């Protein structure tokens, strides 16, 4: 199914957020996630279903002012 990861369309087969992160190559990276604009804590990723058309945001620490 097609979803969006950080604004880029991706074809994935996984159906929960934790599995999607693994499938997309994030492994154990230090990232935080939001699905369709809602924050998903790390402890809830495995139980967070992902469906076609979902929009994932995957962020990490960066410089800021």
């Amino acid at each position, binding site marked *: 199914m097609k979803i969006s990861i*950080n604004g880029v369309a991706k074809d994935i087969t996984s159906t929960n957020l934790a599995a999607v992160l693994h499938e997309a*190559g994030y492994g154990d990276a*230090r990232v935080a996630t939001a699905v369709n604009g809602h924050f998903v804590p790390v402890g809830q990723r495995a139980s967070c279903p992902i469906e076609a058309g979902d929009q994932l945001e995957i*962020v*990490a*620490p960066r*410089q800021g002012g």
Partner: protein
Amino acid sequence: MTAFYGVELPTAFMLGTAQYPSPAILGAAFCESAASVATVSVRREAAGAQAGEGFWRLVRDLGVHVLPNTAGCYSPSEAITTAKMARELFETDWIKLEVIGHSDSLQPDPFGLVEAAASLCRDGFKVFPYTTEDLVLADRLLDAGCEVLMPWGAPIGTGLGLVNPYGLRSLRAQYPDVPMVIDAGLGLPSQAAQAMEMGFDALLLNTAVAKAGDPVAMAVAFAKAIEAGKLARNADPMAPCDMAAPSTPLIGKAFLQ
């Protein structure tokens, strides 16, 4: 010493981490200036990249308090989600709340700012709201649960200094017990000293240091100015007056032809 949500900082200098020529210069600027808070952000991470982990290690090794921001957010919902992601990544409930309302001036959206602040405070965040010198907005932010205010000196990145000294003096006078940080718009150490002389508790800046020809030297200059301004404030400055008054005694002056 002023406490920010119960934390007494060793210095009144909060410094951003963006736009430095190199990570080494960033680290040196913090080390040499003894800045006690580092502001940071969250941004999209590419699969397989380790940029976030590398930057996190750099910040952690600075040994300072971390203040994540919601820079670039234009709506309360966007800022709230960003704050929650930042809390998980940086392991802190401090958040520098930015809800921008005007893209040219980067002026805060006062309505969105209050809405987001109230939600985040209810959720346990310790909110540092990026605000203006507006007294009513300050009142609403305090009602929303904020225990710190961060009025701008000037629009972000301009280096214009304190463009509305009257407004800032009024804000300081209206809420003498609220910890306040001048955030954004400073360009020179003399402006930092001026802000501290006005009674503000700390300063947050980034561009003026990072974009200086010698960021480390400029960070040190700001640190000294902040300390000088704080010392001057505590020393109870004289009241200015319009008439001249000789400092050298007239009594005993020789009468000469």
